[in-house]
């Protein structure tokens, strides 16, 4: 019986491969354009950030930290940790990672927030996409790294796409949560004063959901950072590259330093994106 089962294998893997082949044969132009646009955007952002001298950029980030949080402690922390990264020699790699993370987060927001809003308005849609979201977060990343590699070629773009697949469930879920948890009476206050659907969305639902959506964005950034090393496997630049090289050459010191830079970038981004002090908006 079991032999029969094993000898009559369902060719699931081959079907998927056919599907990918079909996509490459018929949709190559589309994927090329996507790859071109995304690649150019990331490279452009990297070059733009590299144009600014490191010290000036650090000062700008410190200024942003002060503007958003009014915390001297945070500014000191940001400056010292970024200086440490520069000192270790990973400044350029950090910038590359920063632009990869920024781009993937923007893509996630652009796609994820509208999907989350739609799902909040249509419960059946959320029931439909929930298993897909679960799948996107549980399937091992290497598995979808291969098809993205085939579709988009080596480089930063497949890294970005894989990152988006991995990170996008967070903003979708949290946007859905934020919008669907608008208290009924606030919704009705909007209706009672004659709000259109559009006004309800922009003047009641989104403002109420904003803190939750921002939590989703912060999570999305962290998830994107956790994909840095994986992206490096398919040729994306940045801090993942030295980690992968260190792994291949069993170089403990290089691995530690690059890993430390990733952690520092993660902490700085997390602190920056955290909701501004509650005194301003509770």
């Amino acid at each position, binding site marked *: 019986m079991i032999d029969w089962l094993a000898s009559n294998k369902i060719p699931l893997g081959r079907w998927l491969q056919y599907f990918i082949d079909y996509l490459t044969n018929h949709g190559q132009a589309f994927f090329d354009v996507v790859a071109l646009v995304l690649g150019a955007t990331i490279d452009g952002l990297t070059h733009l950030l590299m144009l600014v001298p490191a010290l000036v950029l650090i000062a700008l980030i410190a200024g942003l930290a002060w503007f958003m949080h009014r915390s001297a402690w945070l500014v000191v922390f940001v400056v010292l940790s970024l200086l440490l990264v520069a000192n270790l020699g990973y400044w350029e790699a950090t910038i590359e990672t920063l632009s990869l993370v920024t781009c993937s987060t923007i893509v996630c927001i652009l796609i994820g927030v509208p999907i989350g809003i739609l799902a909040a308005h249509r419960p059946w849609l959320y029931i439909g996409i929930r298993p897909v979201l679960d799948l996107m977060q549980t399937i091992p990343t290497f598995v979808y790294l291969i098809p993205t590699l085939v579709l988009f070629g080596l480089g930063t773009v497949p890294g970005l796409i894989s990152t988006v697949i991995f990170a996008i469930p967070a903003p979708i879920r949290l946007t859905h949560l934020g919008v669907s948890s608008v208290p009924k*009476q606030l919704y009705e*206050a909007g209706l009672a004063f004659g709000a259109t659907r559009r006004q309800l969305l922009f003047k009641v639902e989104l403002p109420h959901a904003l803190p939750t959506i921002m939590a989703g964005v912060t999570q999305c950034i962290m998830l994107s950072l956790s994909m840095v090393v994986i992206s490096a496997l398919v040729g994306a630049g940045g801090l993942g590259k030295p980690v992968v090289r260190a792994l291949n050459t069993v170089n403990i010191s290089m691995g530690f330093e690059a890993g430390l830079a990733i952690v520092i970038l993660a902490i700085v981004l997390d602190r920056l994106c955290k909701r501004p002090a509650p005194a301003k908006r*509770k």
Partner: protein
Amino acid sequence: METVSSTSAAAVEFRDVDIIFGKSREALAMLDAGATRSEIFDKTGSVLGAAGVNLTVRRGEICVLMGLSGSGKSTLLRAVNGLNKVSRGAVEVTHQGAAVDVASCSETALREVRTTGVAMVFQHFALLPWRTVRENVGFGLELRGVTTAERKRIVDEKLAMVGLAPWGDKYAHELSGGMQQRVGLARAFATDADILLMDEPFSALDPLIRDKLQDELLELQARLHKTIIFVSHDLDEAMKLGNTIAIMQDGRIVQAGTAEDILLRPSNDYVAEFVRHVNPLNVLRGHSVMTPVGALPREGNAVVLDAGGKVHLTLDAEGRPQGVLLDGRPGQLVVADGETGLAGTDPAACDVVVAPLDLKLRAAIALRQYSGSPVVLVDQLGRLAGLCGDEEIYRGLLRSDDMVAAQ
């Protein structure tokens, strides 16, 4: 049936309104077959919110919908601005001179009614927490597309009206409950809607604040003459505020009328149970407790006011009180106004008080105590209508049956 003149002054009219939450067709058929609320729920799973409601709310009056929770009062209120969908029947809202049936009108017409014709005050305030007080008050205007400058002017005016001018830039959660509901009131007033829907607006407040806001609402109403539909589960509140009161039970209006009507002639046990705990001092008026003029002892063209036969009230040819004789000696006759009673008169210089027929029982007691004689009640033409002395006051307080019979 309504007369033509009274329907023309109607601001909101409910006509044979049934509201059902859930599958309405099946439930309506059962309702027509005479099924009760619980039978309909057991059979179809639909909830009967309101059934067979006919009610006219006149322009400029406060109509209180009153009942226990689940009696359908909020359901009915929310049908006026379409927050609850009417399953059958019509809810006609007078908007800019024309009647709009919100149960069947277009989306655009409904929105028009909501932005300019009907405003709402919510039980738990429903203020937007991310907006300042000022931005909350301007919310309705903003939805309507009023310009920023115009909005600022109106918002400032309404904030001053509810006494919150210095608090405009605070957030709602920084204010006390009473103040938050004043923001809710200002938001409703800001759209200049003629009709205000108030869904238990003061129930979430503590009693002292509630009382204060009720007084403020009455003061505002005396100036603004809005049409207010007010939901309450507190009969004292209903009787204090309502020009008319509609008592609801299981989705139906079981009695509608003035406070006094309901207090004196409850239509069934449910209403009677409510009424039992009401304080009659503020509800009953002179005409329902007095001994009418025909039953008063007379001596010639004078009426005897006291049991000893020493105080005489002389009347002119029309029956208007002319003077008072204390044991043959002329005394002071003082005229009081119906609401505030006497102001600034020296009690020593006052032997008998004349007051309008609709004097409240509370004021009658004060005047009786003040003058030492029964209060003389006169009709609108100033003619003697009856007397209100200790006997009448006690009967009114006890609401004994013979007083009701005397009506």
